[in-house]
């Protein structure tokens, strides 16, 4: 590991200016803090947190819709636990549950399907959130639902995809990133090819990265090598879990059930073709189409700069509410909710802010 750190310092010397890197995935944000990587590297390396935290980017409208579903007669809403505390426009799923809405936390969409088999007289809607790591599993669950003949199971899809979000960041004016630390397990599914535009169209470096300290240091070294040589590419550092072609079976199942659509990212806004909706032929599973839930758009809480944080334009400590009005116990914005949200990670690991 010493050798890698030495190599990184040498590369920084030869580059001779600060370098801005973005970790796209919330798990990397946390890993970088946890391994103390900021402390052991030369100062010129600036880490920006990206949009890769599903909880942080699910828009208020989707949270409100999920809450509305949970309050309908004879409905059960099943959700991943991470979504429970995300503030909607008036309340969170957690609050709705406390008020009596039937909301169940599940570990897998398969558990939600099981709920449907066990509660035949109720409608079960699974709040489908997450990136490409998760959406194939929801497609797999629908495949299974079809096979066993369940007819009281539906999904509400808030799924999003990573490459279009990276493209949107690269297209925006206020974000200058020279290298991306690309997500590990999203890439287990999609492989390295969908990222190729980053190098070919934008001349920006990227490395698909694992989660231990050595993985991350090695990826940083690889990024700096690309930057120093002026030869951007998409490299895979995390070879133990990621192949160039990804997992074609998972991708084809995901594409069979879902198609791209424009989607809102909380704090960022609409990103073309960055969301997934069920294809028409699978409409019988689609809560959005079947139940006509009409929820108005709503605004983010005033002064929350979550959107700038996940675009890498600002850091959490730039926010006037950070650590004061907004804490993990009482989150104002979505970035403070998930442990993988940038604000929550800063709060927890930057020490200074812990009482």
């Amino acid at each position, binding site marked *: 590991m010493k050798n890698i750190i030495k190599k990184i310092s040498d590369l920084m010397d030869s580059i001779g200016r600060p370098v801005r890197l973005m970790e796209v995935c*919330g798990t990397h944000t946390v890993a970088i803090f*946890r391994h103390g990587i900021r402390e052991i590297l030369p100062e010129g390396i600036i880490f920006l947190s990206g949009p890769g935290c599903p909880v942080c980017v699910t828009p208020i409208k989707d949270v409100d819709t999920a809450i509305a579903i949970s309050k309908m007669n004879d409905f059960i809403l099943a959700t991943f636990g991470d979504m429970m505390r995300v503030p909607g426009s008036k309340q969170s799923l957690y609050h709705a549950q406390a008020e009596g809405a039937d909301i169940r936390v599940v570990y897998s969409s398969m558990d939600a399907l099981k709920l449907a088999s066990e509660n035949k007289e109720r409608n079960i809607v699974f709040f489908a959130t997450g990136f490409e*790591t*998760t959406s194939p599993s929801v497609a*797999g669950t629908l495949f299974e639902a079809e096979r066993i003949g369940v007819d009281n199971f539906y999904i509400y899809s808030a799924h999003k995809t990573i490459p279009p979000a990276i493209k949107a960041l690269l297209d925006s004016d206020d974000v200058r990133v020279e290298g991306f630390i690309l997500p590990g397990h999203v890439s287990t599914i999609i492989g390295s090819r969908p990222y190729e535009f980053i190098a070919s169209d934008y001349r920006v470096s990227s490395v698909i990265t694992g989660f231990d300290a050595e993985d991350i240091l090695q990826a940083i070294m690889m990024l700096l090598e690309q930057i120093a040589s002026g030869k951007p590419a998409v490299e895979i550092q995390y070879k133990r879990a990621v192949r160039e072609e990804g997992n074609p079976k998972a991708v084809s199942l995901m594409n069979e059930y879902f198609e791209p659509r424009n989607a809102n990212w909380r704090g960022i806004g609409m990103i073309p073709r960055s969301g997934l909706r069920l294809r028409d032929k699978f409409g019988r599973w689609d809560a959005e189409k079947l139940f006509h839930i009409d929820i108005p758009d709503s605004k983010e809480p005033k002064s929350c700069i979550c959107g700038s944080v996940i675009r890498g334009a600002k850091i959490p400590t730039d926010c006037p509410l950070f650590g004061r009005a907004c804490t993990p116990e009482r989150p104002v914005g979505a970035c403070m909710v*998930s442990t993988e949200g940038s604000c929550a990670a800063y709060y927890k690991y930057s020490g200074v802010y812990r009482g």
Partner: protein
Amino acid sequence: MCLAVPSKIISIEDTTAIVDVYGARRAISLLLLEDRVNVGDYVLVHAGFAIQKVQEEYAEETLELFKQWIEAERKASN
């Protein structure tokens, strides 16, 4: 949320497997898996589905790392 945890396959029946992760047993689906797997193999598991076969050595290292994280998390929240 996008973390996948290496788990050891204990038994397989059709497209479902029982895996062991940190001593807990769980049923997972093999529907998304490209590779053929056998009892004793390790797979990365996310949200109840195996998404990739991995080498045992890597699985052990990663399990150790995540265990440290989970423990740190627990300490921090106490």
